[in-house]
């Protein structure tokens, strides 16, 4: 029963990792910008939802506000930080440092305005009840799984059926050809940041309900997103999502076999294993040099 319990818990956490990682992978895949401040979009969305619920807003309005804030943050950072840098020299390192700096600023601003401590949304959705002998499950489990499946379905439809989605994929594969066809890479990059950042919001909202928030949570989110992107195959959205889910499950199920302090290390063992044995990741494409 312990294994089943851990598997269910792993699926719940993994679904949230998958959403966050998919957002990061979408942005990185389409724009090749290492958006280290993706964790800040997550944090801002979570705190917006928290403030909205504390202010007495209905949950759906709070959730919508979280999505809007994360999206605006994504659009803002591309327009005011990454784009100017790319216009001048645009080295990978400069962009990374700028993103890192934005992450620190956001963390401190949240600390100043929201307090420097733990915060969570109090909801009965996160209270688990015994569904089988010694197996506990909270309603938020079904919300996390259902929402993730729905969002991935919508995202897949968007990327395969909608012109803008197809153009986003093209931006990743051949930006020069895209421009030759008269499409604006700036507009498509904005779209990638909007959609990618918005994807972090549902995970942030559910995290606010389950494990809670603090102003420094963005770093942890980024760590998982990066690991999932590498394991899934750089540039592969479904790879990142699957890897996120896999990391969450591995972290939880590992407790059946190892001591609790090694749970996080398991994620990174998976990461190292992929780097060594399959550097291109699950769905990555091996390129001959």
């Amino acid at each position, binding site marked *: 029963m312990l294994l089943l319990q851990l598997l269910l818990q792993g699926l719940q956490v993994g679904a949230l990792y998958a959403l966050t990682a998919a957002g990061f992978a979408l942005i990185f895949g389409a724009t090749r910008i290492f958006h280290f401040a993706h964790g800040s979009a997550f944090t801002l969305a979570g705190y917006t939802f928290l403030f909205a619920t504390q202010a007495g807003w209905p949950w759906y309005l709070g959730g919508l506000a979280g999505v809007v804030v994360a999206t605006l943050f994504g659009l803002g950072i591309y327009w005011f930080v990454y784009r100017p840098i790319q216009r001048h020299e645009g080295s990978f390192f400069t962009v990374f440092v700028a993103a890192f700096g934005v992450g620190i600023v956001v*963390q401190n601003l949240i600390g100043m305005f929201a307090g420097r401590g733990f915060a*969570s949304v109090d909801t009965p959705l996160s209270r688990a009840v015994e569904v089988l002998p010694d197996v506990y499950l909270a309603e938020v489990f079904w919300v996390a799984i259902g929402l993730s499946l729905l969002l991935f379905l919508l995202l897949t439809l968007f990327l395969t059926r909608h012109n803008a989605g197809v153009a986003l994929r093209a931006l990743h594969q051949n930006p020069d050809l895209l421009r030759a066809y008269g499409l604006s890479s700036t507009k498509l990059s904005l779209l990638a940041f909007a959609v990618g950042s918005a994807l972090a919001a549902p995970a942030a909202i559910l995290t606010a309900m389950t*494990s809670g928030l603090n102003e*420094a949570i963005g770093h942890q989110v980024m760590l998982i997103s990066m690991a999932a992107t590498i394991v899934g195959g750089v540039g592969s959205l479904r790879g990142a999502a699957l890897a996120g889910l896999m990391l969450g499950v591995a972290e*939880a199920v590992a407790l059946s076999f190892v001591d*609790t302090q090694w749970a996080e290390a398991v994620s990174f063992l998976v990461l190292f294993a992929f780097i060594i044995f399959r550097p291109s990741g699950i769905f990555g494409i091996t390129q001959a040099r």
Partner: protein
Amino acid sequence: MNGFKAGRRAVLGGLAAAPYIGQARAQGTSPSGDPYIVGTLFPMSGPNAEYGSVFTAGAALAVQHINADSMLRRPVRIQAEDTQALPQQAVVGMTKLVNVDRAHYVLSAFTAVSKAVAPVGDRAKTVMVNGGAVGPDLSGLSPYFWNVIPLAHLETQALLPFMMQRNLKRVALVYVDDPLGDAILGILRTALPQVGGSLVGQFSVPRTAQQFAPVAARIRQTRPDAVYIASFGAQQSQIIKQLRDNGVSQPLVSYSAMNIDSVRTLTEAEGLIFTTQSTDFEGGDAVTRRFATDFKARHNADPGTYQVNYYNAVRLFGLLAQSLERENAEVNGENLRRVLLAQREFDLVGGKGRFDELGNMSAALQITEIRGGRLVKVG
């Protein structure tokens, strides 16, 4: 170029502590000359930053009082360094405080941080005072390292008989993988059997861990009577919430680190039992009443244990430095220690503070339970 260069940690620490320090400095106009520097090594950012604000509030009020009373010939100023509760950052901060800022006195917190900075302070003969960490090996860490907080072995000595009375004999421990957690594991391993209890499970978690639902599943399997949580900062709240959300219904017990607002106001922390220092703010002496009144006036809230401790730590500096000024002796680590060991007893918040030869202050303890978001004394 020898001009002053502020490090990132100092700038961040200074910015985070500025609201408190600014108020403290505004009051101190009478004393003149170069200020005495009281360095702080607190987490002002990161997941433990809540403690930094709490600690600084107590220290800043003491600085305000010392300056306003013209207790010393020179003003006292706080120099904040942000440690993020990490030993590496703390050593950098301590080195800067000692070598660049020439701090006369340094306030430390967190067991791992305190153990990391103690050799630096020891070499420089700079007094370091801890009012927040409870690792038992902080006692006697250095002749210049003092504690104004009862350490963990004293807290557990007070808590375990109470737990046995409530028939909480089978204890599962969730502990952070750092010197504090290891110390509490060691204490419970030896002390529980001595009082008729047993440690039925021990679950170490990394400092960065955020997911505790799987740990809850493992804890449930041990069928404990109570779960002892030995962590701090945002993580301890996450542990409480996730244990409660995931079917751990047994009483939760802990130590004084739980005495912060984010735990007290957490719905899932209802019924949490932990040890704290006992301070009578209303019926106490003049020093205690002044502290309580001014703290409430400034922060619109009642003071907590940590504010008392860091107020006392800075007030202790004021009293020791005052004695040295009267002797026309230099205010440095060696002299501060000499006066401490000569006097041993000081008027501090909570009554007389008595120090042993290792620089540890004794304090009364009480057992507290969170009921309806309030702290209720239960033992």
